[in-house]
């Protein structure tokens, strides 16, 4: 994985030192909350309803063991022994104390991590296919490209005060695990008709209160033009994105209101004014970054060894587990394994974050559930038919909401209907798409 150079290390250390001084001034009353707020937010520190929250970026979702241990150390020493892993590959600590935060940032810096640009109207943490660098499905490892974008976007002077936050996700596989169509910009590594590797650019997706599926801005972009093209796109957003209404300020609203064709024309016109060589990245620099993501020394192993096949044949529980949690690795004899952090026979616990802003991604769940409150009464709204894959789709609301008790019965009824109607190999979504909402709605409201 990428390692900080001397400049990066010095920059992060100085930034932490600055923040320590700002915290000291705040605690001494020399900075008001209004003055301190933008300073803490630029360092990923929120003041939420119940307490402070520190959001730490995990670029492209990749951690080494030293960094993982440091995250655990922060949870043990400064928080309540746990953190929240977010869907955008951040780690959030929900109970830090203000005087401790500079120490937390120092500890993070010691393992080449920080919380810069995890808040504010800037380009946030670049997220990636969680199987990146390992899956047999990808054209190439997308993490060097994500790292390039991270370096370009960190403290970019032109894009530090965008109309609203800006999220980029990347993948290099056809099967989308990075939800690129629900990001401000989604980038997919693709090959053109001559076999050259480049990028497909998706724009204007997002979840939140106004879920919208992104649209294709460019079918194919040569690799060397990526940063220039992103610059042109961000400039159009910066120029025309709405700043008068927070809820209409994201690029998805701009693209929707402008129309993808006109938006594309605007981007291409801006792109034509850019001297690509100004921010073109040389092949040598690409190779330098790529070298940090080199494969470990894989052993020579065979796929599907006899012991594994025997365990699959003999043990139904293992077979089911393997079917759902093991994926093909690019190296023979290796596999990608998903490990659930859910405790056995207990509720999932504090490992995902969700809120009315759709952090829980209910819009793209096969069954999406949103908790709401109106006039002091809590209820749940149900959506069906969402899809977070490469065929991304927003679920449709079934109708009026439910109390908690009614909801559980309704979900059970829908699962029973699915099991009854299911054809060989169908997931819930497949059955739903085949038979439609009406039968599910009927049992949901029975």
């Amino acid at each position, binding site marked *: 994985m990428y390692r900080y150079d001397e400049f990066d290390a010095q920059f992060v250390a100085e930034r932490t030192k600055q923040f320590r001084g700002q915290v000291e001034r705040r*605690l001494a009353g020399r900075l008001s909350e209004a003055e301190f707020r933008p300073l803490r937010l630029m360092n990923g520190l929120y003041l939420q309803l119940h307490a402070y929250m520190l959001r730490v970026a995990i670029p492209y979702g990749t951690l080494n063991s030293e960094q993982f241990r440091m995250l655990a150390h922060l949870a043990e020493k400064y928080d309540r022994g746990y953190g929240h892993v977010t869907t955008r590959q951040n780690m959030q600590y929900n109970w830090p104390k203000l005087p401790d935060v500079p120490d937390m940032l120092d500890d993070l810096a010691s393992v080449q991590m920080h919380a810069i640009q995890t808040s504010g109207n800037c380009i946030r943490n670049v997220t990636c296919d969680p199987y990146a660098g390992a899956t047999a499905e990808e054209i190439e490892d997308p993490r060097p490209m994500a790292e390039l974008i991270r370096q370009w976007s960190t403290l970019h002077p032109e894009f530090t005060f965008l109309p609203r936050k800006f999220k980029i996700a990347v993948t290099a596989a056809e099967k989308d695990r990075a939800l690129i169509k629900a990001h401000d910009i989604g980038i997919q590594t693709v090959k053109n008709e001559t076999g050259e590797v480049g990028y497909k650019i998706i724009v204007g997706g997002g979840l939140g209160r106004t879920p919208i599926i992104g649209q294709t801005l460019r079918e194919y972009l040569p690799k060397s033009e990526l940063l220039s093209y992103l610059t042109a796109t961000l400039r159009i957003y910066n120029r025309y994105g709405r700043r008068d209404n927070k809820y209409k300020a994201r690029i998805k609203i701009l693209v929707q209101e402008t129309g993808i064709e006109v938006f594309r024309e605007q981007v291409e016109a801006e792109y034509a004014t850019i001297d690509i060589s100004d921010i073109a990245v040389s092949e040598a620099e690409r190779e330098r970054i790529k070298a940090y993501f080199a494969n470990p020394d894989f052993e020579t192993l065979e796929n599907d060894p006899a012991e594994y096949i025997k365990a699959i044949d003999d043990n139904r529980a293992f077979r089911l587990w393997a079917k759902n949690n093991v994926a093909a690795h690019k190296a023979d004899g290796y596999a990608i394994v998903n490990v659930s952090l859910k405790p056995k026979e207990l509720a999932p616990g504090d490992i995902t974050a969700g809120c009315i802003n759709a952090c829980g991604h209910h819009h793209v769940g096969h069954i999406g559930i949103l908790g709401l409150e109106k006039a002091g009464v809590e209820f749940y709204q149900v959506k069906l038919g969402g899809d977070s894959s490469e065929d991304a789709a927003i679920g449709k609301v079934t109708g009026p909401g439910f109390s908690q008790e009614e909801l559980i019965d309704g979900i059970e009824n829908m699962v029973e209907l699915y099991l009854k109607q299911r054809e060989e190999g169908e997931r819930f979504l497949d059955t739903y798409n085949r038979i439609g909402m009406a039968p599910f709605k009927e049992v949901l409201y029975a």
Partner: protein
Amino acid sequence: MSTLKHKGKGPQAMTANELRDGYNVWLDENLDWSRDYAKALRTEDQDLIDRMQLKANTDEAKNLVADLLEAK
């Protein structure tokens, strides 16, 4: 920092965050900050509401609390 949008529309309470620890606190009937939500003073008495606001502003100025919010 306090928001007055609910003022005059039913019982009021005053909440904030402790500056150092960040915990959510509520003004109780003694006009002390309590971390216990159940002890929050809820009142429609305008004089009392004004005293709550004064206490909150004073403690904010003393850097004891931040992000005051008058809650309905």
